[in-house]
């Protein structure tokens, strides 16, 4: 029972972590809190659903295509909104407000096109195939979702830590001006970051859509709250922190549902967030919320 719940918790937490990873990348590198990340999460899920149901594509094609679509939405938001605010040296609140507007626009569009009812992936995917690890039973779909989320996270962390691109992104995260003086094309990498972050957010949306088999225009908002909680828990802008914060939230939620009641799920998660902020306001990894020019 406990082992089974741990598997469920890791599965849910890994998807939260994937969402939070994209969210924290934008904060760490662009220095803005992109509140349209929940909207992108929702659009990613709808994009995959559309490709599967309307265009009859297999999930293996729909998944990467929807990831790219989500990335392009993020890129569009960066080019149309965030870049203009950067060029004007807008204060931090402005991108937050502008991206709230973008999120509302996306939600309204989805509501207008798809309606408010939950949409579902074809039921044949949700068959009874399972993996058995001793006493633990893992539905194949859940194993796939968890594996993909973990692989993407590890890949992203490897890129940031070990590659030239990762070095350049970390340089920008510390100081865009210093990075520019080294010949790093800062604006281009801002666009790339927005693309990658949104692709990760959209993928999380697809995975949550598959996991709960329910896609609605409003699914982004609660996820956004969880994403904010995860990156605050881990330390704003810190990639490891976002991953741990996401996993922590997933574990808390699953255990709250198992040992308390589903009504207390969010209360417990956000209660712990509140306690965390009292104990360690800078989060687990204590990344600074400020950076040089």
């Amino acid at each position, binding site marked *: 029972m406990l082992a089974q719940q741990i598997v469920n918790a890791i599965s849910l937490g890994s998807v939260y972590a994937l969402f939070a990873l994209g969210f924290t990348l934008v904060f760490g590198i662009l220095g803005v809190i992109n509140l349209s990340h929940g909207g992108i999460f929702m659009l990613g899920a709808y994009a995959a659903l559309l490709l599967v149901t309307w265009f009859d594509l297999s999930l293996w094609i729909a998944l990467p295509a929807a990831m790219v679509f989500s990335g392009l939405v993020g890129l569009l938001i960066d080019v149309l909104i965030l870049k203009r605010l950067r060029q004007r040296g807008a204060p931090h609140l402005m991108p937050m407000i502008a991206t709230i507007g973008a999120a509302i626009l996306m939600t309204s569009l989805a509501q207008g096109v798809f309606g408010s009812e939950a949409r579902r992936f074809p039921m044949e995917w949700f068959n009874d195939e399972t993996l058995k690890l001793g006493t633990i039973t893992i539905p194949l779909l859940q194993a796939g979702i968890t594996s993909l989320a973990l692989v993407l996270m590890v890949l992203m962390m490897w890129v940031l830590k070990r590659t*030239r691109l990762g*070095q350049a992104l*970390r340089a920008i995260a*510390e100081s865009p*001006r*210093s*990075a*520019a*003086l080294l010949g790093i094309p800062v604006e281009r990498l801002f666009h790339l970051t927005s693309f990658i972050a949104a692709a990760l957010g959209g993928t999380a949306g697809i995975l949550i859509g598959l996991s709960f088999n329910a896609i609605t225009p409003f699914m982004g908002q609660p996820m956004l709250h969880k994403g904010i909680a995860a990156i605050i828990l881990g330390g704003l802008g810190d990639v490891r922190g976002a991953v741990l914060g996401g996993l922590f939230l997933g574990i808390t939620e699953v255990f709250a549902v198992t040992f308390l009641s589903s009504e207390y799920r969010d209360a417990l998660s956000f209660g712990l967030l509140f306690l965390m902020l009292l104990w360690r306001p800078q989060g687990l990894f204590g990344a600074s919320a400020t950076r040089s020019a």
Partner: protein
Amino acid sequence: MNKALLQLEQLRVSYGHVEAVKGVSLEVHPGEIVALVGANGAGKSTTLLALSGLIRLVSGRVVWENQDITRWSPHQRVSGGLVQVAEGRAILKTLTVRENLELGAYTQPGQADLKPIYERFPILKQRASQLAGNLSGGEQQMLAIGRALLSQPRLLMLDEPSMGLAPLIVRDIFAILREIHQQGMTILLVEQNVRQALKLADRAYVMETGSVTLGGRAQDLINDPRVVAAYLGG
């Protein structure tokens, strides 16, 4: 006289309504050390930032090897050989010394060859895996210069390399600059330490409140009564 490597023509820069650089024109020729000196707030650093493309010009032109590069992005300028060691050294403190150096070669194809830099600055090799933020001020300045050299500059611009350093370290840094220059590097040096800068430079410009007020051979300026009275404690 050689053809100018770099020409600034009537550069104007404003911060909001405040005009920080008011029509500055200057030239740097290949193989020279040119110093841009003046008091704090004279517009020297702003001029360098504009040269690196980090500040938009109100008007004026930047000409690099007879090509108008006024609209070039900062990374295009670095790729073209205009490399700056910024005021305060702009070290990436959360990255290791080696990572800082590797990023110096970001615009260069292939793997960065750190060996020549480690030979010039052995302390950087010893500290390669340490976070750059843990280096002393002098070591950070060496790292900043070494990192800039990895960008293969054809004009090395330095903004206040002596700032915040002990006199002995300043002497070492100026010796390093002299050595780099002797190996053929063209240098544009912004410096508040007017005496040191004029001793090192071939030519110099004096800036006051956003404008160039004097220019000429450094040797002449060091004896100019106006410079002596204003900057050399005469």
